[in-house]
């Protein structure tokens, strides 16, 4: 016992460094830390690449870059994917700011997409597109916000755990969509998703994704203003920071929770609408493709700031696209690209630690040897 204790003292107390919290960091220092961490990540990835595949890491990074932004088509693709991810990240942000852990964006997006697809199938051809598309938009917003309101209602009424609740709502949504995918597939029951011809979003300036990007840009600005300058946004912050304070000043907390989750679900619904009507023109159970979860990371990394989210979502999509290109070109298992993305994201998240804390090196005490 004594020995163990001595050992602990030696290792932990006489260690060359210890960790202390930082007060505040100048913004440019924070960015230097972030950039250094990305560079370190690239070096570590390079080492691992050489060790595992014997490939030249620099060539690999060039491939990665080309895979993400090599051609103008790829660039548009990148922006389009970023826009969707950003849209979903914007959707979860108000809920997160309120400390309502909405991890059900995946389901809310799918339900929004399902609603859009249903409109395209049942109303398509009977109504002209200029009438049909607004209807699709409204219906998807309503569907998404209902999917968001259900867990919020149970939270306010019975104080249920919103994390589990929103998570399980995802599986319900996935199964419902899976059912309708089969139901609507051509031929029926074959599983090949039907291409939805009516109600596709128009092509602007010969770019089919431009309208998606513009819509998300508008949502970004609105969300920024909403959170920062509106009374409702202020209420969200107060409720998130301290429910007790909110009650003390007379904010109706339940109302704020319901309203915010309705908004969160509604924007997810719009993301579903953009995916089905603007991008895929079909509906599958993996239409959301895990973006509902990735969005959580985007939102956190940007510290819930809508403008920073443009950067974080772009970064993550860039990494995904680039890494999958590596796997494709060098005929590597797709896990390899996941490893690369994982390492880079790990370093970026890790850099936040060094922004919040500093490592101090203990001065060697001269008396120790005497």
């Amino acid at each position: 016992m004594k020995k163990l204790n001595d050992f602990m003292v030696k290792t932990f107390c006489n260690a060359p460094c210890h960790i202390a919290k930082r007060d505040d960091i100048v913004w440019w220092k924070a960015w230097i830390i972030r950039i250094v961490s990305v560079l370190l990540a690239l070096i570590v990835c390079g080492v691992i690449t050489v060790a595992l595949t014997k490939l030249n890491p620099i060539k690999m990074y060039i491939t990665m870059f080309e895979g993400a932004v090599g051609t103008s088509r790829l660039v548009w693709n990148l922006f389009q994917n970023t826009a969707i991810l950003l849209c979903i990240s914007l959707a979860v942000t108000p809920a997160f700011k309120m400390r309502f852990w909405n991890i059900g964006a995946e389901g809310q997006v799918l339900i929004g997409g399902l609603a859009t697809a249903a409109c395209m199938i049942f109303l398509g051809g009977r109504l002209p597109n200029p009438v049909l598309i607004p209807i699709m938009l409204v219906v998807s917003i309503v569907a998404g916000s209902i999917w968001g309101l259900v867990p919020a209602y149970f939270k306010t009424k019975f104080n249920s755990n919103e994390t589990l609740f929103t998570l399980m709502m995802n599986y319900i949504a996935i199964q419902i969509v899976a059912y309708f995918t089969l139901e609507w597939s051509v031929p029926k029951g074959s599983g090949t998703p039907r291409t939805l011809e009516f109600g596709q979003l128009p092509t602007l300036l010969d770019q089919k994704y431009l309208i998606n990007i513009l819509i998300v840009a508008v949502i970004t600005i609105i969300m920024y203003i909403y959170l920062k300058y509106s009374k409702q946004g202020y209420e969200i912050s107060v409720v998130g920071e301290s429910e007790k304070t909110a009650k003390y000043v007379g904010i109706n907390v339940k109302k704020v929770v319901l309203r915010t989750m309705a908004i969160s679900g509604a924007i997810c619904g719009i993301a579903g609408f953009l995916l089905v009507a603007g991008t895929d023109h079909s509906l599958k159970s993996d239409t959301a493709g895990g973006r509902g979860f990735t969005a959580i990371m985007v939102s956190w990394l940007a510290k819930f700031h809508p403008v920073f989210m443009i950067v974080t979502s772009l970064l993550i999509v860039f990494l995904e696209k680039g890494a999958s290109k590596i796997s494709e070109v060098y005929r590597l298992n797709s896990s390899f690209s996941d490893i690369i993305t994982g390492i880079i994201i790990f370093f970026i998240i890790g850099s936040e630690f060094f922004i919040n804390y500093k490592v101090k090196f203990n001065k060697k005490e001269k008396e120790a040897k005497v």
Partner: protein
Amino acid sequence: MEQNFALELKNITKTFGSVVANKNVSLQVRKGEILSILGENGSGKTTLMNMVSGIYYPDSGQMFIDGNEVTIASPKDAFNYRIGMIHQHFKLVDVFSAAENIVLGLEDEKGFDMAKNIEKINKITAQYGFELDPHKKIYEMSVSEKQTVEIIKVLFRGADILILDEPTAVLTPQETVKLFMVLRNMRESGKAIIIITHKLHEVLSLSDNVAVLRKGEYVGTVKTAETSESELTEMMVGKKISLDIERSEPENCEDRLVVDSISCVNREGVKLLDNVSFTARSGEILGIAGIAGSGQRELLEAIAGLQHLDSGSVIYHDPKTNQEENLRDKTPMEIRQMGVRLAFVPEDRLGMGLVGNMDIVDNMMLRSYKKGKSMFLQRKNPKSLAEEIIERLEVVTPSADTPVRRLSGGNVQKILVGREIASSPTVLMAAYPVRGLDINSSYTIYNLLNEQKKKGVAVIFVGEDLDVLIELCDRILVIGSGRIAGTVDGRNTTKEEIGLLMTKSSREEQEGGSEE
């Protein structure tokens, strides 16, 4: 070496970020001696002792026990060196008995004999003059009994150096006397005792030596016998200040708030407030005294519309319209919309009165953000209000855009009180408004309350320091276990009278409980 100190600290320094909690602190305590560590809140007393008891690790400096240099890296090390700390917040298992809590966590030595342990506990209680039933469960105990368990716990583990962090903060005057007697007995038997405190009269009546800290720096150690209250204050604050609170005669008293037999229960059905009635009058400070957790918080929250009431009424007399309004079962928003200008400085400043992560301007808006029809916030008035408060109350802050959690306790409180007063209230309720504040800030707050009183506001002041209550308040309401134990006149009452009322009601309740 001539005489070894039981504990000696040399040049201890500890920083948290850029905050220096302790800077080159040195002090010594001998066996059979009581040392007080005196300092205002935030002067680093607790941090220093936490390093001795192994909770923090110093950045630099040395510690000696019985003359040998030691490294204390964990509470376990501290325990090996026979150091025991009694924290301000007790760390006991509620459903266990006193004896079970005391032996909890001890290493097994071939077979466990509870009877033997209880015998040992009884021996300790008898030796030092404690009063404790080892079989009593913690949840049945009063705060002072719980404290006794904590002290016996460290003695049972063989501690020779005892550290008590603000031990009297939660005790009535009578219980304090008892505790001091026990501590003196321990001193006689050769223990080294350190007590952390900011109460001057306790220092003078109990300790042999006083070490004074100011803003993390070690000011010096003086012999208690050779010092005085004013000298110690000067050492603590760094300058001479007068310790008198002015008290003007109440003028134009009218009934402003009439609370009539209100009662409420918590989720478990325990009565938090039991048939409480009183009247708060304009131009008067009404003090509320009582042991912590006797229903003070619920009482204020009930008036503010935050606590559901089962019976009774809260009648507000509007000075402008002369109408009577019942505030019961109204939400804070409804109360404000009725035109009732009720200001409330809650006990939990950053958790309830303010939002720690928001800047001063946004915190100013908390009360007023809803004004106007626009869906957007209007930050111009809150900003000028923030600047006004910063200037008038001398708030130390880098700017109005600084998150309030970065400010010191006194400045946080000035922001909160400033905001509440800015609404020109007719009723001002303040719960422990000077808790954790340094002397200067405390007096700023007392002056603000007095200023409001002169303006004809009905001030309700919940306090813990009986000396202050007696000096500041016109009438003092004593509350115990959710019941009013009595009302006394602040001008001709004594601490003993209030202390007796505080304990009377809780004793009655215990007796009543055992009969059932």
